[in-house]
């Protein structure tokens, strides 16, 4: 790193170069990744990124940040570092582990992106993994008794399904009929995206071996249930509350999977001939009441928009994580967006494809990047998600395929300063 860089302290532009993910699997003994290690899933992603970007010398990767919610066993031992070593990156490449539950990978991206902006890194790999079969949600956690004794958090808030029911209570306008309709739509949109070949390119094939079955190759997601109808969903059990509204059909499942992305400074991307799929505009995290954690994306998005000097009307595409349909609808209602607005989750969402907790953030980014490419008329898009214990995360991205992106690029420094000032 040149001494001049730290002396200048210019904010540098950060671009999303490329992202991949493993096909997502269903957690549990019958799932495709039963018997497969979480770290191996991350390794497949990192190696695929390096293969897809041959102009990126491995020793130019300055950091590997990998998120996992449960950081023990095959997700332990500082997984960013172990994955880098196991992937065959040079030993000079450092790595770390990161955790913000569902927004783990998203936080890996924003944290390393900040490092790029600050001048600490040129190129990074950021991603996440969750093997919920190997690590059931909350396994091994030991919540402080003060949460209970001092009523800091309603015990129900530690169970995500309960928080989704709480959200229904807060927003009576969001009915089970609406959430089921939304969920069926998610399945239909994913099926359409698959048939249009809009998902497959993001996937890294993963071979696994199981006793008595031999090696198999996984090239598609296991969780989707294409053809699901509102009628199918209506009769499902409501496991979190008798006569409740949240079902396995209008929520994301328990899943295994990993994601990883390459981010770079705009300069490094140009120097190394790396593609620019998105430019990072701003990001924000926000806290909400843990009992209604699903509302988190609302304040996070408002904050990120403020940081960027943008309004919600400037956003042409939304990739919002579907932990629960009710949580998506609460966001859409807040911003006055229709349940079936074509700007929202064009390829469906986690209700269909699955949500391996800490990995999902980069999946949203992969999909937004592809939609940017498909739709140059859109200038800005967001990736956003709710987070356990009451948080939200939002990242705003700019489409490099948009007509006005070029003029911006020629005047990069000024824009960066302007946006910095806006924050």
């Amino acid at each position, binding site marked *: 790193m040149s001494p001049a860089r730290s002396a200048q302290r210019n904010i540098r532009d950060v671009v999303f170069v490329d992202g991949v993910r493993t096909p997502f699997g269903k957690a549990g003994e019958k799932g495709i990744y039963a018997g497969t290690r979480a770290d191996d899933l991350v390794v497949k992603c990192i*190696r695929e990124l390096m293969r897809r970007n041959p102009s990126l010398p491995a020793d130019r990767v300055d950091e590997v940040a990998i998120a996992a919610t449960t950081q023990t066993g095959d997700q332990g031992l500082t997984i960013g570092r172990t994955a880098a070593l*196991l*992937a065959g990156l040079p030993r000079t490449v450092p790595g770390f582990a990161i955790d913000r539950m569902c927004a783990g990978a998203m936080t890996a991206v924003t944290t390393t992106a900040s490092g790029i902006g600050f001048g600490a890194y040129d190129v990074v790999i950021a991603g996440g993994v969750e093997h919920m079969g190997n690590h059931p949600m909350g396994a091994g956690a030991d919540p402080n008794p003060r949460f209970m004794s001092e009523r800091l958090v309603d015990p129900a808030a530690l169970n995500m399904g309960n928080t989704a029911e709480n959200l229904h209570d807060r927003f009576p306008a969001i009915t089970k009929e609406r959430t089921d309709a939304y969920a069926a739509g998610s399945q239909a949109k994913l099926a359409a995206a698959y048939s249009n070949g809009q998902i497959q390119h993001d996937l*890294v*094939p993963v071979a696994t071996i199981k006793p008595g079955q*031999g*090696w198999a*190759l996984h*090239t598609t997601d296991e969780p989707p249930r294409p053809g699901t109808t509102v009628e199918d969903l209506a009769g499902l059990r409501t496991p979190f509350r008798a006569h409740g509204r949240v079902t396995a059909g209008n929520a994301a499942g328990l899943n295994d999977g990993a994601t990883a992305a390459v981010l770079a400074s705009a300069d490094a991307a140009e120097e190394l001939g790396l593609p620019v799929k998105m430019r990072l505009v701003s990001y924000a995290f926000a806290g909400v009441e843990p009992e209604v954690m699903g509302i988190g994306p609302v304040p996070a998005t408002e904050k990120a928009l403020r940081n960027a000097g943008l309004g919600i009307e400037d956003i042409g595409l939304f990739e919002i994580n579907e932990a629960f349909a009710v949580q998506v609808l609460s966001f859409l209602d807040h911003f006055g967006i229709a349940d079936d607005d074509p700007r929202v989750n064009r390829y469906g969402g986690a209700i269909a494809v699955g949500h391996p907790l800490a990995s999902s953030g980069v999946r949203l980014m992969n999909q937004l990047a592809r939609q940017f490419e498909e739709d140059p008329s859109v200038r800005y898009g967001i990736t956003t998600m709710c987070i356990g214990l009451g948080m939200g995360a939002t990242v705003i991205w700019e489409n490099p395929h948009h007509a006005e992106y070029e003029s911006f690029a020629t005047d990069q420094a000024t824009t960066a300063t302007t946006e910095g000032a806006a924050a």
Partner: protein
Amino acid sequence: MSAAEFQKLAALFPDEVVTHSYVQDIDLPGGVGKFALITLDNGLDHSKPTTLGPNTLVELGGVLDGLKDRASKGEIVGVGVTGKPYFLVAGADLSAVKTLKEREHGLWMAQLGHAVYATLADLGVPSFAFINGLALGGGLEIALQSTYRTVSTGAGALALPEAFIGLVPGWGGVYILPRLIGPENAVKVMIENPLSNNKTLTGPQAFELGVADAIFEPADFVEQSLAWAARVISGEVTPERKNSVDATEESVATRWAASVAAGRAFVEAKTSNASPAPAKVLDVMEANRTMTQAESAALECETLAGLMQTDEFRSTVYAFLDLVQKRSKRPAGAPDRKLARPVTKIGVVGAGLMASQLALLFARQLKVPVVMTDIDQARVDKGVAYVHAEVDKMLAKKRIKPDAANRTKALVTGSVSKEAFADADFVIEAVFEELHIKKQVFAEVEEIVSPECILATNTSSLSVTAMAEDLKHPERLVGFHFFNPVAVMPLLEIVRAPKTDDAVLATAFELAKGLKKTAVLVKDAAAFVVNRILLRLMGEVIAAFDEGTPAEVADTALRPMGLPMSPFTLSAMVGLPVAQHVQESLHAAFGDRFPVSQNLQKLIDNGVKSLWVTGPDGTPSIPAETLAIMSFGNTPSTGEEVLRRTQDALAEEIGLMLAEGVVAGPEDIDLCVIMGAGWPMFLGGITPYLDRVGASERVNGKRFLAPGVASAPA
């Protein structure tokens, strides 16, 4: 050959650990089509390699027939074979093959393999082997019979070791390999490597030779192999085979003949043609240059059927599987390892060459401090300097890393005072081979060390019992007999004296394990095992020479045994004075069975170092002046007579050793001569050979090993 016969063969092995053929349909990337991937898996962990027995082959054959049918219907575009983690498949189930009594059954086994493998090459769609790990013999031949191959950079061992085992690579390897990688390379893989300590290829080496068409790293080997297969099937990639040859070309015929001739010379030099298998490999390769693959297959089957019935094959399986792989890991008579005490510092008395070699070995393998002592600073410095220089040599050859070199050097120190042994747990002496000197050394050491400190002697010929006699704690003394060169020879004879206690013995065995040596427990008897057998053998040959047998007759008489070197060469290598010294102590212990040669003494007295002197043209001869020193009798023997007399002498000596209880059984004798003298596995060490040639019956009236252990079943 028929399916019914194969079923009959399979039924002979109801207890076979079957390696199953699991099939998964895979959608190849790029919409190339459906691909059937077979995984060979015995359902056991990586400590239990997959093998190919008759039931395994019948199952694989059935699976391949089914896939051929699907291919004909256009359901699949290719077939792949790979293995459970770390193995493609380890090869034919040798312990099963060894028990095949009837030649016909061996023939069926050979034909079964060919029938199954032939399907791989005739599926109607291309076949691919993904060599993910170890692939030996029939395991590698599955890959060779496939249309295309990928190999993992992490694949451990790839080889066609049949010439070593006593067979030929007769499931197509001997036909395909020379065509695929050229006859010169094929001879290297099929002859030179097996006969050079059974050397194997790494994945990258195999790829470099052209054994595989593509190479991928282990992290996503199966994924990348499948992606590559898709590109081959779609026509996007056509593998180049830079070493492949067309056997019908005239220039290739010349290379082929030259390679076979070179192979024959190599076999002659290595084994004196004492085992039939290596020559048969070359016979089949020579013959099949002008054959079709089917014609070669028939010849391979007949050759295999014949070799499976040889005792050389059965003795090798006994030596390799039963002794080297199994018995050496669980030494007979070793006490419970839980009794072993930790050894955190080692003392070596003496700083001469042997002592320095021991210090280096201990420091490198055990990674504990080692202190050497000697009578003056100059000797001590020389010993330590030797160790440091050896470490530097290893560093220069990149056999160790700089940190490891620093660590090893720092571990080895010297002192002129035995006080340095005060906190040692194990002190070994390597001083002059004189009983009173050794006793004096131990008496001094005992004054300094703790009462639990183990004392060990590296004596090769003195009585450990006598050495323990005046010790305050005789239970702590154990014999620890290494072979020269210490770093290379794998055997360690651990000598139990009458008072040696179990904790001391257990510690000695744990140390041996840490030193990566094969330890055999022996009773305290003159010269223990290996030297006693070697000197009995040399004694017979030298006696025949002294009686008037011409040197070239005497010294070549044992060639049919295929020993690593002739008796006279061996005695020159050991050093005539050393050999004579040990012979004298054996003579003192056992009398005329170990005659002391006056001729040998005259050679020593005249400073002659070797009987044979190699002339400038490379031919060995005995100089006239050497002959003039000696005197000979007038009862010369023929080579056959010398051989028979040596066989009988060995049978007698080993019979006596077993009667004396020197070791637990003939298996330990065999393990000792394999690991300590490098005797060939096709002799089974030595007792299977003595049984085979009738010496055991002639001399002792009974065999050493029951029929079937290392020979044809009764």
